[in-house]
C-alpha cells in the first residue's frame, strides 16, 4: 500500500536525430519537445499557479447557448472537437482510436454524457500515466474539464488504482486546488478502482462505476453508447487528455508540428529492461524504436530483442525493431503493436521463452475468469510456455503453444486473451531458433537469469474480487 515503486526517472529529452522524417517547416526537431513533460520540475511539484504559469491558463469553453441572454464567451464545444479531430490526436492508452471521432460520437449520443479519464495503468511495465498523475495532475485535469465541456458532460471521473495512496492523495489535493479556484464547471470525481489488470479495461471501469466489481462486460453496448449511469460515456486515457489540454491552448497545427502527418504529435514511452537510463520519455510519434533505446541511454548490454507495446504487445528481434517507427501502423506492419508505448530491451543473455512464460502466467492469474477460453486457455498456454522454457519440448512443445494461441484468441468478452495470445505468437515468430533449441535440448542458460520483464510482487497484487 505505502510501498510504491520508485518513480520512473524522468528525463524529458527532446528527440533529435537523423532518422526522423524530413522536418516540416516550423523549426528543428529538437525544438518541438518536450511538450507534456516540459512542465516537470525536479525541485517542486507543480501546483495550480505554477501549472498555469508554465502552460498558460485553461482555455474557456462556451456554455451551450440559450442559457441566459448573454453571448457565450470562449471556444464553442463543437469547435473544440473539430480542433482535436484536425490535430489527429489518437488515444494514448493502447488502442489508438481517433480521439476527436470518439468525442463526436459521445456528444451526439442520447442524453448528457459522462467523461471517464482512465489513469489506472494496468500494464506493470508502464509508468507514464502515474508520472502524469503525480507530477502534472493539472494537465490531466485540464483535459478532463475540456473534454467534459466539449461533449456537454455533466459527470466526470478520474479513475486510478484504489491501492495507490500516493496518487489518490496527489489528485485529491489537485482537485481541491481547482475547486478553490472555481476552475472546473463539471466536478471531477477521483475514484479508486480495483488493482487488477483487467479492471483498467474501459468496460471494466464503466462496470465498476455502475456498482460492479470492475470486470469487463459483453458488448454491445459499448461505453460510448451506454456507459456510466446509462449515459454515453467518453473514456480517454489520461495522457490523451493531457494532449487535449495542450491542443486546446495551442491548436491543431501546433500539435501537428511534431510527429508524422499520418501519426501526429508526441507520445510518452516507458523504456525499461537493459538500457542505462530506464524511465519515461516524450518522443515524437514515428521515432524509430532504436532511437528510443538510445534516448534511454542506449543498451546496457548486448540486446537480442525489444518487447514493444507491453504485455499485450509483441517481441521483435532487436535488429528488425531498430528502424521501426513508433506508430500504430508502423508496428503493426512489423508484426507488433504500439500499445501504450512501452519498450523493454531484452539482453542477449536472457531467455525470451522463460520471460514470456512468466508474463503469460501473470496474465492468466489476472483474468477476470468470466469467459471459459480465457479461464482455461490462459493457464494452459502458460503451462505450455513454462514447459518449453524449463523442461524442453518433451511433452508440450511449439505445436501445443500454437494450438492454444488459436484457442484463446478472439474468444473473450474483452481483449485480455487476445493480448496474451499476441505476446505468445510473437515469441514463436521472433525466436524460432530459441524455441526449437529448447524443444530439442531443454532449458538454455538464460532461464536462471533474474527476470527482465517487470511484474508486481505477489504481496502487491489483488488476488480476490470483492
Amino acid at each position, binding site marked *: 500500500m505505502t510501498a510504491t515503486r520508485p518513480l520512473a526517472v524522468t528525463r524529458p529529452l527532446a528527440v533529435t536525430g537523423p532518422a526522423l522524417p524530413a522536418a516540416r517547416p516550423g523549426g528543428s526537431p529538437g525544438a518541438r519537445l518536450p511538450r507534456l513533460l516540459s512542465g516537470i520540475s525536479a525541485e517542486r511539484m507543480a501546483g495550480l499557479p505554477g501549472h498555469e504559469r508554465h502552460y498558460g491558463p485553461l482555455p474557456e469553453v462556451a456554455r451551450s447557448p440559450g442559457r441566459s441572454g448573454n453571448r457565450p464567451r470562449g471556444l464553442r464545444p463543437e469547435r473544440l472537437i473539430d480542433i482535436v479531430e484536425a490535430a489527429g490526436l489518437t488515444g494514448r492508452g493502447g488502442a489508438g482510436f481517433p480521439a476527436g471521432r470518439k468525442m463526436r460520437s459521445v456528444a451526439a449520443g442520447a442524453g448528457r454524457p459522462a467523461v471517464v479519464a482512465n489513469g489506472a495503468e494496468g500494464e506493470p511495465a508502464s509508468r507514464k500515466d502515474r508520472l502524469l498523475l503525480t507530477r502534472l495532475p493539472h494537465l490531466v485535469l485540464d483535459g478532463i474539464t475540456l473534454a467534459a465541456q466539449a461533449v456537454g458532460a455533466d459527470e466526470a471521473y478520474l479513475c486510478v488504482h484504489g491501492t495507490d495512496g500516493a496518487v489518490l492523495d496527489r489528485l485529491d489535493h489537485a482537485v481541491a486546488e481547482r475547486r478553490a479556484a472555481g476552475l472546473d464547471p463539471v466536478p471531477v470525481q477521483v475514484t479508486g478502482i480495483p488493482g487488477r489488470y483487467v479492471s483498467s479495461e474501459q468496460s471494466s471501469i464503466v462496470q465498476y462505476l455502475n456498482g460492479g466489481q470492475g470486470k469487463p462486460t*459483453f458488448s454491445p453496448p459499448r461505453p460510448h453508447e451506454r456507459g456510466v449511469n446509462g449515459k454515453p460515456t467518453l473514456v480517454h486515457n489520461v495522457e490523451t487528455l493531457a494532449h487535449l489540454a495542450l491542443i486546446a491552448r495551442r491548436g491543431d497545427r501546433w500539435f501537428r508540428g511534431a510527429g508524422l502527418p499520418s501519426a501526429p504529435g508526441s507520445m510518452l514511452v516507458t523504456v525499461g529492461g537493459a538500457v542505462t537510463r530506464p524511465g519515461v520519455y516524450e518522443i515524437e510519434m514515428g521515432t524509430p524504436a532504436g532511437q528510443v533505446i538510445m534516448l534511454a541511454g542506449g543498451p546496457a548490454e548486448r540486446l537480442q530483442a525489444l518487447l514493444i507495446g507491453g504485455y499485450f504487445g509483441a517481441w521483435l528481434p532487436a535488429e528488425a525493431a531498430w528502424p521501426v517507427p513508433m506508430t500504430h501502423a508502423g508496428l503493426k506492419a512489423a508484426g507488433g503493436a504500439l500499445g501504450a508505448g512501452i519498450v523493454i530491451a531484452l539482453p542477449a543473455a536472457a531467455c525470451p521463452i522463460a520471460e514470456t512464460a512468466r508474463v503469460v502466467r501473470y496474465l492468466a492469474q489476472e483474468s477476470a475468469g468470466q*469467459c471459459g477460453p*480465457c479461464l482455461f486457455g490462459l493457464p494452459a498456454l502458460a503451462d505450455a510456455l513454462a514447459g518449453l522454457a524449463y523442461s524442453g519440448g518433451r511433452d508440450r512443445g511449439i505445436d501445443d503453444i500454437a494450438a492454444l494461441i488459436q*484457442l484463446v484468441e478472439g*474468444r473473450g*468478452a474483452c481483449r485480455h486473451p487476445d493480448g496474451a495470445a499476441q505476446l505468445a505468437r510473437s515469441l514463436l515468430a521472433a525466436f524460432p531458433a530459441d524455441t526449437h533449441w529448447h524443444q530439442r535440448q531443454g532449458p538454455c542458460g538464460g532461464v536462471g537469469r533474474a527476470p527482465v520483464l517487470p511484474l508486481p510482487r505477489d504481496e502487491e497484487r489483488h488476488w480476490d474480487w470483492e
Partner: protein
Amino acid sequence: MTFTLRVNPIACTGHGMCAELLPEVIELDRWGYPILVSPAVPRPLLAHARRAAQACPTLALLIEEKAGKRR
C-alpha cells in the same frame, strides 16, 4: 438480411447444447466451449440455429440480424 451467430462468452458456461443442435456450424473446444466454425448462418440452417439459441441454458448463443452488408 444476413444472420450471424455470436457467443456471449461471459454468459456461456460450456453446456455444449449448441454443438449438439447445430453441429454444422458449432464445434466444442477441449474445455467444452463453443467454437463458431462459420459465424454466418446459412439460410437452410436458420431454424436449427434458432432452436440452438433457445435451447442454451444460459442464453449465451445469439443470432444477430443484419440488414444487407452494413450493420
